[in-house]
């Protein structure tokens, strides 16, 4: 940590390229901060509504049936505000706020910009808890990959161990979870297990919690994804361990190390580097498989984009979805590359 910070402040010795990257990043951040202060405030945006719309919003306040939905989305440098009535005859007013001004966004480029802001906001799960959109995707993928790596290491060690029962059990586990579709595993864990054992996932949370069902589903999803990822990671870890030359084992034995010590001190540290690229692969696969949670009532990026497509009859919703996925993937590829580089020092 110390050396990292030292390197950061020792500007003279920065490599040229690194410095340029930092400067560009800092400029972008600075511009974003300035722009984010310049964008119109929420109150300003909401005041844009036409007099008729204001009247309808007023009327809604005293009525038991709400007709107007006021949407306010703020994405760092731009914000978007829309007023829309429901029903067969829709009336909508849309505004995009940028650099101190609110622009009408009912057609043309304004409409496009407004849609982009609104869709991105919804897919990122802003204004929502962790059970929504990109937050759900990221958390589910990261957590299940972590569970998978830990579980996978144990399973791999079990599979290559000399204990026949343990080895058979681990092989059976891996065979089962790699040989059946994740979707069906998800269904079994969410629907079949509670039916057979007579419990409900939502009972893990208080009955008064409006989100209890979603939280229960999320726990079920986390278990299913973790178990599934464990099976795939087990094979990755096993392959990595077995790719270390036999000579290492023999040398360790000659030095008088036990099997456990050999694994812990010699073999596993060396195999980590070889695990990183396939684990990264597994991570990216998981990222996309996260969309299967739609089957148990959760809304990830893909599900939200499909939902928007149906309700707004709009196909450009997939543009921001692709960009979000690419950004997430690029970011994690970078992390995995960095980890790989750190561990390459051994070779």
């Amino acid at each position, binding site marked *: 940590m110390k050396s990292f910070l030292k390197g950061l402040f020792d500007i003279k010795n920065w490599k040229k390229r690194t410095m340029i990257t930092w400067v560009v990043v800092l400029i972008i951040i600075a511009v974003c901060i300035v722009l984010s202060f310049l964008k119109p405030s929420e109150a300003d945006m909401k005041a844009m509504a036409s007099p008729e719309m204001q009247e309808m919003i007023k009327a809604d306040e005293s009525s038991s049936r709400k007709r107007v939905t006021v949407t306010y989305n703020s994405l760092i440098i731009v914000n978007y505000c829309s007023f829309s009535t429901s029903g067969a*005859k829709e009336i909508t007013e849309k505004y995009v706020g940028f650099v101190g001004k609110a622009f009408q966004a009912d057609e043309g480029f304004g409409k496009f910009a407004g849609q982009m802001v609104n869709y991105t906001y919804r897919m990122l799960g802003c*204004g929502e808890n962790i059970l929504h959109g990109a937050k759900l995707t990221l958390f589910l993928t990261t957590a299940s990959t972590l569970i998978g790596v830990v579980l996978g290491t144990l399973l791999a060690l079990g599979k290559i161990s000399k204990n026949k029962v343990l080895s058979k059990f681990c092989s059976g586990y891996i065979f089962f979870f790699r040989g059946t579709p994740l979707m069906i595993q998800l269904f079994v864990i969410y629907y079949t297990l509670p039916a057979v054992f007579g419990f409900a996932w939502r009972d893990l949370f208080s009955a008064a919690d409006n989100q209890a069902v979603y939280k*229960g589903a999320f726990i079920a999803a986390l278990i299913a994804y973790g178990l599934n990822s464990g099976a795939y990671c087990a094979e990755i870890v096993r392959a990595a361990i077995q790719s270390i030359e036999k000579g290492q084992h023999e040398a360790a034995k000659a030095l008088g190390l036990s099997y456990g010590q050999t694994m812990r001190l010699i073999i596993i540290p060396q195999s980590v580097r070889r695990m990183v690229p396939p684990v990264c692969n597994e991570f990216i696969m998981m990222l996309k498989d996260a969309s299967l949670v739609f089957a148990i009532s959760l809304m990830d990026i893909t599900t939200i984009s499909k939902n928007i497509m149906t309700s707004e009859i709009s196909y450009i919703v997939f543009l921001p979805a692709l960009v979000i996925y690419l950004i997430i993937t690029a970011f994690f590829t970078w992390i995995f590359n960095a980890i790989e580089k750190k561990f390459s020092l051994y070779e």
Partner: protein
Amino acid sequence: MKRLTRVISILGVAALSLGVLAGCGKSASDGAAESDTSTAAVSEAQADDAANEAVADAASYDLSNVKLMSEGKLSVGCEVGYPPFEDFAEDGTTPIGYDVDIITEVARRLGLEVNIINTAWDGIFAGIDNNYDLVCSACTITAERQESMAFSTPYIANYQAVILKAGDTKEIKSFNDLDGMTVAVQKETTSDELISDYKSTGTIDVEVVANEKILSCFTQLDNGEVDAVLVDSTVADGYLAKNPDKYIYAYKDETEAEEFGIAMGLQNTALKEAVDWALAGMEADGYIAETYDYWFGVTE
């Protein structure tokens, strides 16, 4: 050890950037809190209204026998994403639609709060009494379904309808006239069963395209990939009201009505009585008719 700290620092940077990526994280939670309070405010307002009305009507319902998932709250399973019955408003969180209006009013008349739980259509009925008290999600009442669950009195009638592209002059007087055409339907709906039956029995020679979403059917019709769409008349009303110059109503089979009801557990008779009581009141004072006009806009 040094290497380890480096890895940790990288992970630290990663975590930080994750925070940045989440970007709107803070305002997000604020927003969530806000929307929570706003829905709470809504239900409070509704509860107030309900209280007033109950006094006015002097006919509030005795809920002491009704067992609910959580006290004072009606949990509703609903596949949000089937406009105009149920759909998310533009803010992406507020469910709106015909079913939503109906069930909210039912709950209001019973003096309950409503909690709509978005659920995938597959397995929606398995969630009754596990995840929610009832399902209000454009469910057709069928004899088969009635064996495993109880339905309220119907709150809307629905027919099978054939939609053509505007300007198409084909005359369709019965489903037999679809002979030789390519027809799009939504997968595993009544429309799908109906037309597949015509095809498998050899009554007519028709090509059936089954889509996941009803929107895909209409897009295929726009693009000329199919000749007609067979769909629930209520859904068709919604689409036609929004796109009056794009599609035309070719045929509506009024001989066979399908009725939509609210599905509940078979054992939950007290809840069924309560819901039926509320629906009867809504039918009597014109709430249902008014809501129908609002969402399907066919009285012009």
